[in-house]
Each structure stands twice: as structure tokens, then as C-alpha cells.
């Protein structure tokens, strides 16, 4: 639970402090050196997946209807990125105890079925997602060639119906990065499945 805001005198003792939120534009990828198990059995970090022109980090999973709705667009765009010098890593931070559909065997099957051409790894402690301040799936973070965050948010503005998309946020950000331009829309939001974080190891 993340209490977002308490206004005026509603404040009562014992409230959970608000979370810090996601990393800001310009930030470097946190925990970039942490190796995570990929669907092909290798262990890969965000740094391993980084491309010469940038890095796309996507927090995702199997079970979420929003992921499923966006998935074909996500795969096409991510594949395009890898061909054009932007490295891609898709990270599943969900606790499979809550959603068995998010366990590794199902991830392997999904990556095969949907033709993932990029790593799909497990954030086995959910700590990478915590460090990013990610809250939902899918949630994307695009870093430029210098490793600075230039876009954070949604893939586009209509999960359900690709034909009704009017703003291709991530595609536009990718083109800007590849052209060396400033990304026009740097942060967006969309409804998504809340990440089911594993309990912190104390």
C-alpha cells in the first residue's frame, strides 16, 4: 500500500509515509549491474542489455491484461529498438506466489509464443523494481546513449485498441533518442496492474 497523499487535517498518527515515486528524468538506471535470470537460462543485468544508442527497460509480466493488450506493440517496438542500437530488457518483478502465471516456465512459454527477441528476466527480489520506483506493469523507462532517463511511462495512449491510438509516446521517444533530439513528452501515465512485490529480505 502506498498512501499517496493526505490533505488538511485528515492526517492521523500511524500513516504509512508516501513512497518516493519513480526515478526522475535525467537519472541513471539503478541496480544496473544486478544479474537476473533470463528465460534462456543466462543471467543478465540492465548493463549487459544496454545498447550503444540507449536502453529500454520495461517492467512487465505474464498475467496482466494491460500487458497482454499492449504486447504485440511492445514486441514490435522492442525488436525495432534492438535492430537500431537501443538495448532492451523486459523485467518481471511480480511474486509468482501471488500470480502463478508469472513464474519462469510460463515466462519462457510466453517469450517463445510472442517471439521475444530480447531478454525477459526475473527480478527475483523485486528490488530492481523498487529501486526504479516502478509500480505497475507495463511501465517503461527509456535511457539515452549517456545512460540518462529520457522517457518514463506508457507505451501509447490506448492499451485496448491500437486503431484508436493518438499518441505513440514510446515510439516517439525512441525516434528522438535515435535522432539525438530531446524527447518532447517525457512522462506519461496509464492504468496498469500493480506490481506484486516480493516481501523485502531484511
Amino acid at each position: 500500500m502506498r498512501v499517496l497523499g493526505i490533505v488538511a487535517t485528515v492526517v492521523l498518527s500511524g500513516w504509512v509515509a508516501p513512497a518516493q515515486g519513480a526515478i526522475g528524468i535525467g537519472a541513471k538506471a539503478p541496480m544496473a549491474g544486478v544479474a537476473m535470470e533470463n528465460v534462456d537460462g543466462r543471467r543478465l543485468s540492465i548493463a549487459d542489455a544496454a545498447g550503444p544508442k540507449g536502453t529500454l527497460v520495461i517492467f512487465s509480466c505474464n498475467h496482466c491484461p494491460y500487458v497482454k493488450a499492449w504486447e504485440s506493440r511492445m514486441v514490435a517496438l522492442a525488436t525495432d529498438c534492438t535492430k537500431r542500437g537501443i538495448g532492451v530488457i523486459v523485467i518481471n518483478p511480480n511474486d509468482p506466489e501471488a500470480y502463478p502465471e508469472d513464474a519462469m516456465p510460463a515466462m519462457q512459454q510466453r517469450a517463445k509464443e510472442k517471439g521475444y527477441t530480447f531478454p525477459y528476466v526475473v527480478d527475483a527480489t523485486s528490488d530492481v523494481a523498487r529501486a526504479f520506483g516502478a509500480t505497475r506493469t507495463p511501465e517503461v523507462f527509456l535511457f539515452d546513449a549517456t545512460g540518462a532517463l529520457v522517457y518514463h511511462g506508457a507505451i501509447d495512449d490506448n492499451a485496448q485498441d491500437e486503431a484508436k491510438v493518438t499518441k505513440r509516446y514510446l515510439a516517439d521517444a525512441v525516434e528522438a533518442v535515435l535522432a539525438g533530439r530531446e524527447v518532447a513528452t517525457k512522462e506519461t501515465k496509464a492504468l496498469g496492474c500493480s506490481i506484486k512485490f516480493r516481501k523485502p529480505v531484511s
Partner: protein
Amino acid sequence: MRLGMPGRGFRLGALLGLAVAACGGCGGGADSPPVLERSVPPVEGLSADALRGLLRDGSAPATVVNVWATWCLPCREEFPDLVQLEREFRPSGVRVVLVSADFPDRRGEVEAFLAEQGVGFRTFLKQGPDMEFIDTLSAQWSGALPGTFVFDARGALQWSVEGKTDLPTLRRVVETVLAGNASGRS
């Protein structure tokens, strides 16, 4: 206020009737619970514009908005608490606005779940762009489900949470908002 897209009602009685028929000879008689004819009001479409209108219409001393989805586990877990909250605070005029974020093709599942939960008041299905809807509720909300937001009589946000909440917390927040209204706090 535009509420658009009237939905179909869902009658739990039909389902319960089927269950009783399927049960056949599994007991019954005078001790059997009666088959309830509970109908769920049609689920109405709700755009960000309509939501703004609803929050500012001044008709409730407090409005609790919960955004949920049928496939969202924490949403389903906290749902009975929201239904109970509505029951407890209905006499005070508090309004509980349940907004499903399911895609429109899952309206049947939404209505079935509402019937299962015994929801007898009007509920909604989110319409229109996500970002505008999210920011209408709270600029601090990332859009992760569930989200719960408590507004005062003037439609000003007083408290919000991303993730599962519970009845004692909501009771406390709503009571505090009602007390704030009564004391004329601005």
C-alpha cells in the same frame, strides 16, 4: 455530467436459481435460504469529465472513489470492505463510486462480480484516455490498481492510496472528512 453508455443489468436471482436447480436433492425445505432477487444497477460509462462533474456536484458530504478491475487480486480482496463502507455510511449521505477499469468487452464479468458482492448501487466503467482519468483523481497516482480516493463535500481530494486498503482505515478517513465538513474547515 455525461455518464453515457448505459449498460445491461445483471440479475443474480437467475444464477442463484440455476444453482438451486442444479443442487436438486441436496437438502432444502423450510431451512433453505430463500433465493434472493438482487439486481445490479446497470454499469454506466464514466469519463474524466463526468467524474469531475460528479465530484463537484455537491450532493454528498464525502465521496470515496475506488478504481478496480475483475482480474486484479488486491482489488477483489478489498472489495467487500468498500461495499460494507457504502452500507455503513449511506445514512450519512456518503457516496461510494466504484469504477471498473476492465475493458468494455468484460462488462459481463464486471456485472457478475458486482452481483456476487451484493452491490445494489450505481457503479461505473472507466471511459476515455487513462492519463486524464488518473490525473482527475490525483496527480500523484501512477495508475496502478487498485486506487482509492476520498474527496470532501467540495470535491477536494483529502486522502488517497495506491494499493489495497481496508475498512478500518476507510472508516477513519471518512469520519475525519465528515467531521471536517461539519467544522467548516476549508
